[in-house]
């Protein structure tokens, strides 16, 4: 397998009354080894459920309707969607792990940090002794720059700050040396100076280990600072995908352009902010044409009738827009 993770034609549905509603529609993603891959989009675009689907953690009534998620694990290639619950548990935390958005609520309040770190270790290494586990736990806390590791091990979640908790979450996620780390908005709940600390830490850790990172965020700034490749999600689809520099310098899709203009016009000279008109259409209320058509300034008749395909417009740069086709043909 060339890639660490290959998602093909992934579709996720939910039930609304008796109707089947698609929340994620034919998503293809390939994550290279030792790569940090950004997934960006607004709330409800399907970025977080993609991560849940990879880990087999989709909450009821969401389910995978179609597709495949192939993962290059230590003992050969695996089709994650076909694994049994027991086999999936072996992958989770050992080969693929996850950091969640809110560090304040993702640690268990009634166990010490030590117990929660040991749990992650002993689950995958049943024979490991207390002394060895403690050594590894201390080493990990040291790696994530926790000031007093010994004291922190004995602490409960409420005794620590948000930044420290997120460091501990990262330490727990990396304790088994996973091949893939899913980070779902890891800095959204944190202050900007703490965000800078955590992003630095993640960049350093990526350099030291061969862990690939999927960074899920709504913040293009976080993507620009940490990722090599990026996919932009809109209404359950990928609308644009490219290397980070290519995406920011040769932005092709009107939605990506809009997002970028909306954030960069902040602090700019003009008083009136650029806005994308309208709102993100909720899941299941998508038109049969281009899903961005209603909000697009360059919308053509064709866009309302027909869904544009995700096409390669430059080497490694994919875009889902008819305007690009025209430029390619011309």
């Amino acid at each position: 397998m060339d890639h660490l993770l290959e998602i093909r034609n992934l579709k996720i549905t939910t039930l609304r009354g008796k109707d089947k509603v698609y929340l994620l529609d034919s998503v293809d993603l390939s994550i290279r080894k030792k790569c940090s891959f950004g997934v960006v989009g607004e709330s409800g675009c399907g970025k977080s459920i993609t991560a849940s689907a990879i880990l087999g953690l989709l909450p009821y009534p969401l389910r995978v309707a179609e597709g495949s998620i192939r993962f290059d694990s230590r003992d050969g290639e695996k089709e994650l969607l076909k694994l049994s619950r027991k086999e999936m548990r072996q992958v989770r935390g050992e080969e693929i792990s996850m950091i969640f958005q809110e560090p304040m609520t993702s640690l268990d309040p009634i166990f010490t940090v030590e117990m929660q770190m040991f749990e992650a270790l002993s689950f995958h290494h049943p024979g490991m002794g207390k002394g060895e586990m403690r050594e590894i736990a201390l080493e990990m806390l040291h790696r994530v720059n926790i000031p007093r590791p010994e004291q922190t091990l004995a602490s409960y979640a409420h005794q620590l700050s948000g930044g420290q908790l997120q460091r501990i979450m990262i330490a727990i996620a990396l304790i088994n040396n996973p091949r893939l780390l899913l980070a779902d908005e890891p800095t959204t709940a944190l202050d900007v100076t703490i965000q800078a600390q955590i992003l630095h830490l993640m960049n350093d850790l990526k350099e030291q280990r061969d862990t690939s990172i999927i960074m899920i965020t709504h913040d293009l700034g976080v993507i620009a600072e940490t990722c090599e490749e990026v996919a932009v999600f809109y209404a359950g689809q990928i609308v644009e995908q490219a290397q980070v520099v290519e995406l920011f310098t040769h932005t092709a899709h009107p939605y990506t352009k809009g997002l970028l203009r909306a954030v960069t016009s902040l602090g700019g000279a003009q008083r009136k902010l650029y806005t994308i008109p309208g709102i993100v259409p909720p899941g299941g209320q998508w038109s049969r044409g281009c899903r961005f058509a209603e909000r697009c300034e360059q919308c053509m008749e064709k866009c309302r009738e027909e869904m544009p395909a995700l096409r390669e417009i430059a080497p490694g740069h994919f875009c889902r827009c008819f305007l690009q086709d025209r430029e390619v043909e011309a």
Partner: protein
Amino acid sequence: MTERKSEFLLEVRKLQVYFPIRKGLMKRVVGHVHAVEDVSFSVRPREVFALVGESGCGKSTTGSAVLRLIEPTGGQVFFRGDELGRLSEEEMRLKRRDMQFIFQNPYASLNPRMNVWKLLSEPLRIHFQLSPGELRERVGEMLRLIGMTEDQLERYPHQFSGGQKQRISIARALITHPSFVVADEPVSALDVSIQAQILNLMMELQQEMELSMVFISHDLNVVRHISGSVGVMYLGSLMETGDTEEVYRHPVHPYTRALLSAVPSHDPLHRSRHIVLEGDVPNPADPPGGCPFHTRCSLCSGRCREERPELREIAPGHCAACHHVE
């Protein structure tokens, strides 16, 4: 009470808010959280003053204390020359017609059992005696200003998106035609593309209704866009104040510098060089002596640990609280 003439609409002087920490069976007060410590600033008519800082720095508490939604422990707040602290509850209630508050979370600040008509007419019923016709007219006018239509009057908050809800709560705050509002993180709960819409709306309304505003936010880009002057808060104190562009272009306080450099840049070719601050914000129940920032400051010297720096003017209109700034 003597009328004080002033160029400022709002003047805050040495505002203090302490919250008692109670412990034990008798709920004995064992200490205080110093949420706001000697904060002073002034807001001119039609000016937007922003309070910016990280969570727990006291910016929201300052906003609430200005309107006496939280009773200040010390200091004075003057509004149009009246000292608000001396007003009775009833007098303060009348004042609030002219001073309003926009809350952060539109999902929580609108009563789910009231429809748009009730939500918007309630402030008018409380503050004015209007005929049903006048009431309809005022509500209709406000709806137009926020870009909504009369056929949405019968709807309830859950039928609207986050952005629309925030429009409704802005309308609710502005329907009494106040001259001053405190807006506490009004766009933080919204998606990026919706944030821009609400910010544009707030700036239009601010111009049109000639509002003065204290705009509270942790988002440095938003603050730069909307405000004319700014106060940077850390651990309950103002670290730096001044004209917004001036502070952003030439930050002098080490904390402001670190804060501004921590904002992710939107250009992958020029990844910003962060000044990464070590450690966390100290506990406000047990603030460090001397300068509140000295535990994380790279310039920290002996004097910083001993003596609390005052907010001093370092250039016309630009103040900083730091011993190391000339």
